[in-house]
């Protein structure tokens, strides 16, 4: 086992840190440490500008192959980039859905024409994406999507009808990747298609959802005869599920180390607060802070294991990767609870009416979503038990 990075990688770390130090200042000073999960409604315009600055420096899509405009970074360099980005207080990325989900899917499953058409806008930081998966009747049971895609041969377009929900950043996005039923008689995983849909068209309506925080990052998206070019289906009709799930098995969690650096920033805030307001002398709070520290440290070691290991030849996740979502989501939720308890009674007082929250108050509320989106804790446990431990599936109703 070797825990250190190579000298070349450490030099790369210097390079990243220096670039961030030189560029994340001036007009961007105010968006440092802002715009992450739970704070994504803030500074949209400034963060869009920042995305373009990042792109100009060659720091978007660092893990993508060079032939698609990426930086072609090794796993280690990607880890370093995300760590340094978070350490410097790099703002929440407006382009993360395109860079992390849409782009890699197109690279893996798309046609050459789709790559030419869509990848450059993601790399340039100008095209923002959202993900059209969940529906009112398709949450944990995602394969139950009802949104339909019908091919109109006169128009030579797919016509999409239906409703998506919990669509992050749909109100800012230029494109949405949508799973919809191409075979109306089908059910479950079969008969689905994966579509790249332009948001700015008459058939698409976005309605924000006001969340527990009072703010809106999530939306409902309605498709009423929305149109999608015949060339903008990824994979064949009927292969949508395979495309949608394809990347999950190969995800090795490179960006997770950056996420953890952000968690570390939050925990540092909680610790500093506890020292200031005296909560640090409470034996129960001390135990909880030490537990949060312990589990965050191990979260990093677990990610290093994930990154150093190899997925199974079938793309199946290693055990330490299978548990990761359940682990970090639960940890983060507990951090929120710890934060509000360290704040004490004062944590119940708002910064201002009508509902202006401090960062920690907002975090406390927002982390409740972590154990729900992207597969609830309950679904994660099913996956772990069935794929990790070979326990039988529950009979389906």
């Amino acid at each position, binding site marked *: 086992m070797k825990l250190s990075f190579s000298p070349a990688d450490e030099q790369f770390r210097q390079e990243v840190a220096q670039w961030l130090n030189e560029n994340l200042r001036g007009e961007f000073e105010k968006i440092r440490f802002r715009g992450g999960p739970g704070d994504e409604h803030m500074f949209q315009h400034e963060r869009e500008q920042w995305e373009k600055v990042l792109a100009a420096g060659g720091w978007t899509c660092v893990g993508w192959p060079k032939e698609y405009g990426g930086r072609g970074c090794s796993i280690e360099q990607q880890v370093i980039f995300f760590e340094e980005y978070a350490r410097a207080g790099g703002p929440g990325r407006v382009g993360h859905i395109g860079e992390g989900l849409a782009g890699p899917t197109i690279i893996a499953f798309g046609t050459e024409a789709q790559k030419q058409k869509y990848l450059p806008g993601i790399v340039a930081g100008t095209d923002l994406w959202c993900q059209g998966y969940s529906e009112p009747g398709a949450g944990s049971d995602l394969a139950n999507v009802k949104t339909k895609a019908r091919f109109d041969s006169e128009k030579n377009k797919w016509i999409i009808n239906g409703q998506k929900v919990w669509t992050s950043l749909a109100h800012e996005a230029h494109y949405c990747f949508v799973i919809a039923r191409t075979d109306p008689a089908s059910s479950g995983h079969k008969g689905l298609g994966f579509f790249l849909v332009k948001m700015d068209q008459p058939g698409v309506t976005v309605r924000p959802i006001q969340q527990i925080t009072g703010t809106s990052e999530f939306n409902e998206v309605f498709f009423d005869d929305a149109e999608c070019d015949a060339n903008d289906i990824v994979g064949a009709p009927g292969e949508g599920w395979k495309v949608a799930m394809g990347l999950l098995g190969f995800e090795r969690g490179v960006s997770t180390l950056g996420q953890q650096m952000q968690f570390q920033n939050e925990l540092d805030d909680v610790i500093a607060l506890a020292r200031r307001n005296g909560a640090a002398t409470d*034996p129960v709070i*001390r*135990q909880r802070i030490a537990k949060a520290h312990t589990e965050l440290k191990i979260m990093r070691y677990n990610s290093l*294991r994930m990154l150093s290991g190899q997925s199974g030849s079938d793309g199946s996740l290693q055990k330490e990767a*299978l548990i990761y979502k359940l682990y970090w989501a639960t940890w983060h939720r507990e951090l929120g609870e710890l934060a509000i308890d360290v704040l004490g009674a004062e944590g119940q007082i708002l910064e201002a009416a009508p509902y202006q929250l401090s960062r920690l108050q907002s975090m406390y509320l927002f982390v409740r979503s972590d154990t729900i989106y992207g597969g609830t804790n309950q679904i994660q446990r099913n996956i772990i038990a069935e794929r990790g431990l070979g*326990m039988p599936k529950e009979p389906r109703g």
Partner: protein
Amino acid sequence: MEFRFTDEQLMIRDTAQQFLAEVSTSEAIRAAMASEHGYDAQLWQQICQDLVWPALHIPEQYEGMGLGYVELVAMVEQMGRYLLCSPFFATVCLGVNSLLVAGTDAQKARWLPQLAAGKTATLAWCDGRAAARGGCWDASSISATATAEGDDFILEGEYRYVVDGASADVLILAARLAGSTGSQGVSLFVVPADTVGITRELLPALDQTRRQAALRLDKVRVSADALMAQPGQAATALQTILDLATVALAAEQMGGAQQCLDMAVAYTKERSQFGRSIASFQAIKHKAADMMLRAEVARSGVYYAACVAQEALEGGPLATELAEAASIAKSYCSDAYFKNAGECLQMHGGVGFTWEYDVHLHSKRAKASEHFLGTGAYHRERLAQHLLDQEAAE
């Protein structure tokens, strides 16, 4: 950056796993529990002579194999998994580590080859106060005294919770200058267990897979060549020894947590109720998933701590992290093993409550290991002092 076992380390782990699955069976564990010293002396000799496990991280100049702490931890994990009853932990994780950290060259040359070849050892430091206030396992729990008399030292006092203390051939003893407290005035000595004035009493224990003893020293005269490190200044060395042992104990606990998961999954797949395997019920699967999470997280914490421990022994840059890494690993693994053992028992239903099934052996070992060298809460408080009480603005 390669945070995974090398092929050689994997081979060591797999060899240990296969051997222990064969020899540390339910029947063998029970025979060892009923034996005089709590382990099968013949098996121990086989482990020492044929497999040379105690020699693993002893340097080659002292007739060891010269491997590192990662290899040691990979092996100890398997011992915890198969509940091997043996003096390995006491001899190697306490005894060998004490000599490596605090021994003089002469002491290393005298004792390490003997320990590599099958002699047993242990470390005695705390008295009954280790049990006070939820646990106190550092130098402040030493009450035995060492008084210089000419070139000799006179040792007096009592020790408790001494692992394999009644059977060990060699004793490493911590004692303090009369009147000193805390980390002041601490010295370490290495002596043959049959030194005049040492009385050893086996303490019958809830966990029968590892023996504990109480020691009493009545005017024990030892010569200066038994003195390890600097007289009166051994508290730091002692803490390093305890932190190294803590990492190894955490590895055992992690192996145990994994075994409890494996036993629970195997049993629930087999056990049928309501016309189907109970492993198909979400109530069972979700427990198992949480157990796997704990086992995997424990593994990540332990392997990291093992790397740090290795650097602590060879003076690498991560050496300064030893106390923190040990506390992180021990606090997580203590809770993980005990919880997994409890869930394993629950998932076995009635048979989990019987003497016949092995579940209770893990449940008892889990609690014993949780307390020894400090509970989760003890180690979290140690971390909290570092995080919350220092004046330093980093």
